[in-house]
């Protein structure tokens, strides 16, 4: 009889082998070790350093960024901005960033959005300071994971970029960024974000915001170079990152970060 060609045991065995084989994704068959990934650009990994104690809230960085990168000057979008935090004696934390601080902070009044401009007496202030913000160029960028078309990606030297010819403008990345650094470019009609001035840093220059800052509150450097001044500070001093608990591994480090900063 033809039925004894395959008995039950044989059937189960071959089925198990087939299922095991079929469940291996094609991706798993390509060998790509972590070492190999790091070896791509072992010499450069860009990191940013912000010294919040030096920032005076002049907003020259925001102005320079907008003009350098062709971000519509009067549209309410910006790749970098400066936040003002004012902590009062009644325990309240107020923060604002009028026009992203493009024109700096020139009044004591704090923008409370729907509640209008709030006057705060000098003697009521406990603590007040400025915090510059920009893309953290995360090592685990959630904005890249959510892109359905491969328009945004991380370069070998650690910068997250957007391919304007490939972006479909779905906005997932804008929603996905926990730091709110992405926005929809009103002219290009694609997602836009800080590029660490990729066109400048790859030519041996610093970003526009770093060079525009008169007070040295911002700097960019290569964490892989032990002699880099920025790398030295990050390795040897007390620096913090924003929203560490999200596990995004942000690459913008802050000196003098206060717990009220979100």
């Amino acid at each position: 009889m033809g039925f004894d060609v395959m008995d039950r045991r044989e059937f189960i065995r071959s089925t198990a082998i087939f299922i095991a084989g079929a469940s291996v994704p094609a991706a798993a068959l390509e060998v790509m070790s972590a070492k190999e990934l790091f070896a791509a650009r072992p010499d450069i990994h860009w990191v940013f350093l912000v010294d919040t104690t030096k920032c005076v809230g002049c907003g020259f960085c925001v102005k320079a960024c907008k003009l350098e990168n062709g971000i519509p000057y009067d549209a309410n979008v910006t790749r970098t901005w400066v936040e003002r935090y004012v902590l009062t004696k009644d325990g309240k934390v107020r923060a604002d960033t009028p026009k992203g601080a493009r024109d700096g902070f020139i009044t004591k009044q704090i923008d409370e959005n729907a509640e209008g401009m709030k006057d705060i007496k000098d003697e009521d202030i406990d603590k007040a300071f400025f915090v510059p913000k920009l893309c953290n160029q995360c090592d685990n960028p959630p904005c890249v994971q959510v892109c359905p078309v491969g328009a945004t990606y991380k370069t070998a030297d650690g910068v997250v970029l957007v391919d304007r010819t490939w972006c479909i403008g779905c906005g997932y990345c804008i929603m996905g960024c926990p730091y709110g650094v992405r926005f929809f470019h009103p002219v290009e009609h694609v997602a836009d974000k800080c590029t660490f001035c990729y066109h400048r840093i790859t030519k041996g220059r610093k970003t526009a915001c770093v060079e525009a800052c008169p007070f040295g509150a911002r700097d960019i450097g290569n964490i892989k170079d032990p002699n880099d001044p920025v790398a030295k500070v990050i390795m040897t001093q007390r620096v913090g990152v924003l929203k560490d608990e999200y596990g995004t591994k942000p690459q913008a480090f802050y000196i003098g970060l206060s717990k009220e900063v979100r």
Partner: protein
Amino acid sequence: MKNHVWRPLFVVLGVAALILAARMFYVPKDFGVHDQGYMYGFHRLGNEQDWKDQKPEYRFEPEYCSGCHPDKAEELSTSPHAIIPCEDCHGPAKGHPEDPPKLPIDRSREQCMRCHAYLPYAQSGRSNIRGIDPAEHNPGTECVICHDPHHSNAVETPHPQPPLP
């Protein structure tokens, strides 16, 4: 089995083949998984070069400015304003002096107020800068009428005109 059962399958296979063929032409050759792996490195490699090719607007090279304006650089060198890059007030140099031949200078009161509007923020660098109350100190007047931003001590510049009302 009858032909009408298989026919939809042929249609599906045909559509799939068409999509794959179109994809071959539409997707650039350098699109794929690059340095950062499947999760973060899935992109068109040529875009990295596109970003590198962007033209810088700002020069931020002090020597470039002082090469033609040594008098201004000299004047500014003794001022606390020497830390401010030229282009923060004079605008992006781009290809100056060819393009543009003239740079727009921001002489506005708001430009000065970026740093010199007094804010009582002891924990910030603002507290190290001499500031005024914009509502009290000659409101509506441009600061540069009395203060020379290049002067070594802009505060003490003698008034070129009679004091303002």
